[in-house]
């Protein structure tokens, strides 16, 4: 019976959904490998211990708290050193990270420090005898690989939204952990974090995404996309590379081969042709809707529902109808 480690991502003193998903994934692995404990590590400025209760609710037996003034922002070097030291001393079977900007920065550093195998960006996990097997989309989503790790500790990072957060209350015994290196002496320093689109859901977490393409014709016209997103209430705005190249929207909203990879419940593609590099970022969405004036546009080949028409006519009508449906539903 082996314990499993989870790294809980925080930003600005707050836990993030990604962190809860990491704990849930660790719980799953612990339960499938004989019912060991889940140890969740959370790091931040003094006060971050306040996140513990929430971690216990989703399955953390032990919450490892690392508090230091110089951990107010993500501190890659000090956190990697501390996490690596803890994984070594804890003798874990596996360590779970989030496949987010932070987790993808941290997990390879830890893997290299420990000379431990890392399976990145998992969309599903399974225990197969004495091995851990993760499914990982590769080749711009055109191939799904099953990566297998037999050794301990097995490191893995899980894609946002891949593992549901499930209530599973555990003790959440708190334990203070000292940073393994002085966070204030780190060579790499995060000096500023600027929140964009405050109050809006992130693309990786949004259940609905409304994405706009060159068919919108200008930055200004993106207000139609925003209005449609608002009508859903919980939608994020995405864009194609044609749009980010034009500077109509920031690159952080680009979806595709070289942008974000997303998999929402509903993806609405507005004035998007459906180039293969764009499909690479959204083809695993549960339901896809496309609005395009060209009935031959390739986006219709992957869309569940299509409307052939002018975005300037269809999108405002759709926004209104969705608002109505929400109000009545």
């Amino acid at each position, binding site marked *: 019976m082996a314990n499993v480690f989870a790294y809980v991502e925080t930003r600005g003193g707050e836990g*993030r959904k990604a962190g809860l998903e990491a704990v849930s994934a660790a719980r799953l692995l612990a339960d499938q490998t004989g019912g060991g404990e889940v140890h969740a590590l959370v790091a931040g400025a003094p006060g971050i211990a306040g996140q513990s209760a929430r971690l216990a609710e989703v399955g953390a037996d032990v919450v490892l708290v690392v508090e230091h003034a110089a951990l107010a922002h993500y501190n890659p*070097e000090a956190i990697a050193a501390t996490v690596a030291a803890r994984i070594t001393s804890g003798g874990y079977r596996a360590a779970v990270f989030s496949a987010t*900007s932070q987790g*993808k*920065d941290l997990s*390879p550093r830890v893997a*290299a420090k420990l*000379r431990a*195998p*890392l399976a*990145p*960006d998992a969309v599903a996990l399974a225990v197969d005898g004495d091995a851990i097997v993760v499914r*990982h*989309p*590769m*080749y711009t*989503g*055109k*191939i*799904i*690989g*099953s*990566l*297998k*790790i*037999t050794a301990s500790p097995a490191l893995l990072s899980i894609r*946002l939204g891949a593992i549901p957060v499930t209530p599973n209350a555990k003790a959440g015994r708190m334990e203070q952990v000292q940073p393994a290196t002085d966070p204030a002496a780190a060579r*790499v*320093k*995060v*000096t*500023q974090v*600027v929140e*964009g689109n405050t109050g*809006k859901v992130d*693309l*990786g977490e949004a*259940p609905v995404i409304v994405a706009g393409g060159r068919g919108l014709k200008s930055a200004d016209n993106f207000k139609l996309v925003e209005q449609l997103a608002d009508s859903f209430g919980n939608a994020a705005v995405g864009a194609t590379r044609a749009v980010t190249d034009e500077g109509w929207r920031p*690159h952080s909203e*680009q979806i595709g*081969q*070289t942008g974000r990879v997303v998999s929402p419940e*509903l993806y609405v593609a507005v004035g998007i042709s459906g180039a*293969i*590099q764009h499909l690479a970022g959204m*083809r695993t969405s*549960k*339901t*896809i809707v496309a609005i395009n004036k060209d*009935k031959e546009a390739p986006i219709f*080949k992957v869309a569940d*529902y*299509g*409307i*052939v028409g002018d975005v300037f006519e*269809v999108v405002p*009508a759709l926004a209104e*109808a*969705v608002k109505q*449906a929400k109000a009545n539903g």
Partner: protein
Amino acid sequence: MKIAVCIKRVPVMEVKFAIGKDGASVDETGLKYDVNDFDLWAVEAALQLNEKNAPGEVTVVSLGPDAAAEQLRKALSMGADRAVLLKADKQPPDGLAVAEALAAELRGGNYDVIFFGKKAIDSDAQTVGPMVAELLDLPCVTSVFKLDIAGGKGTAQRALEGATETVEFPLPAVITVDEGLNKERLPSLKGIMAAKKKPMETKPAQIGTAGVTMAKMELPPERGAGRIVGQGAAAVPELVKLLQTEAKVI
């Protein structure tokens, strides 16, 4: 300045892939190859940095089969000065094993900056850059879309989910490059001619032991083509109904 860039030979993705006979590899028949997208931006970043800090030298390194010489040649024709091919016919699906081979080559090279792509579009792993940094004990900033290096230190910006992070670091350092940092230059005819005479060294790759193996590769289920609900705004009520009753997403 001495700058290194690690570039990977990857298949051109505009094809229908097939799985190899062993069920755990890609059938390479008929595939075309190019330099990984992000690595082209990494090469461009290196060239620009070198131009600002001349005289200097840009070394490109690739681990791959003999044919990866084509990708190194492309980087040379863009303006890199010399190339190293770490020869390996097969690459394990383990970023750490690859990182160890690259680190063995880069160690002792006295590079001021080592650039990587944010990710290789075939492995889609996003692990090799920071692993090499760790193996060489160098400061590292990943997924950089804005970069400013001067006077032995640098400032970079990277995208988080819904936010932007500003990071400061000293040189020497490892940087992994995201889209948006630059647009890569096309090799000029003169560059292509010059590249033929630039040095390219080939040596066996010292790949580490792989702790991650590929148990299986599969093609994702095809998305069945859906239906056109209708034309223009008149189709909106029907679409909303389908989203409510069939897809159940409203």
